[in-house]
């Protein structure tokens, strides 16, 4: 019988859809009866979404204009 730790160790492979079917089945059997793991997987996925949004950045105008100035100077040569 798989433990929570066994399941979480192979979570990436499972979520990537790269797990052999019999292993995936064994994992799903564990997940079927384990609320902590189900919640864990949900928050593991949310982590990626949250981080992606938190780390979004727009280029400041000052960087854009200094890039343009830099390139114009070099492209003349």
């Amino acid at each position, binding site marked *: 019988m798989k*433990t*929570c*730790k*066994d399941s*979480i160790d192979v*979570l*990436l*492979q499972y979520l990537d859809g790269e797990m052999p079917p019999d292993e995936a089945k064994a994992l799903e059997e564990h997940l079927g009866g384990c*609320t*902590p*793991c189900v*919640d*864990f997987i*949900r*928050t*593991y996925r*949310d*982590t*990626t*979404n*949250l*981080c*992606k*949004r*938190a*780390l*979004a*950045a*727009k*280029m*400041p105008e000052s*960087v*854009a204009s*200094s*890039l*343009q100035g*830099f*390139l*114009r100077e*070099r*492209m003349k040569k």
Partner: protein
Amino acid sequence: MIPESDDHPLQALLVQAREGDVSAFEALVEASRDQVYGLALRMMGNEADAAEVLQETYLSAYQGLANFRGDAAFTSWVYRIAANFCLMRLRHRKVRAAAEEALAEPEFTPRGSLAGMPSEAWGRSAEDVALDAELRACIQGATDALPETYRQVFVLKDVEGLSYEDIAEVTGDSVAAIKSRLHRSRLALREAIDRFYSEKGLKRDGQDRI
């Protein structure tokens, strides 16, 4: 994400830029610079380095236009150049002495069961919920605290959306090593967010009682 499909309008500009049309090249820069800057900022962790990477990248792209075969989208091409410049710079940085053991992980009981449940506040973290400044700062701090090689993989895969194979190509590491680092980075960031939610919840409960 690297835009592949919506890059076709840039093809005409690319032809003009190759023929020496400076304004066409500037239009290519404008169309792709936000993505390239985002990558550089997340990889380098500060605005000054990101701005320098941006300059190196587009200068190199300009000088290499003649060699660019056009079989990939322009944006993907400059993106790749930028990722390489970032990695080159990071290799020169003094390696921070952050040991792998320092990465946070979930806690298990001796029998291998999860020791706790996630904070209830996670329920409110669906995609449409506004990300407040405190959580944003927590995530930025936790990402910056990852060991360099872990942060690179996490940023390239989960934020920038590169494939494992592309990351292996730019970092020179094996796909297996990349997957392992990605998983451990996600676990560490998940712990940081969970701790943030729990502490915030405690603080709020405390205020409620007053």
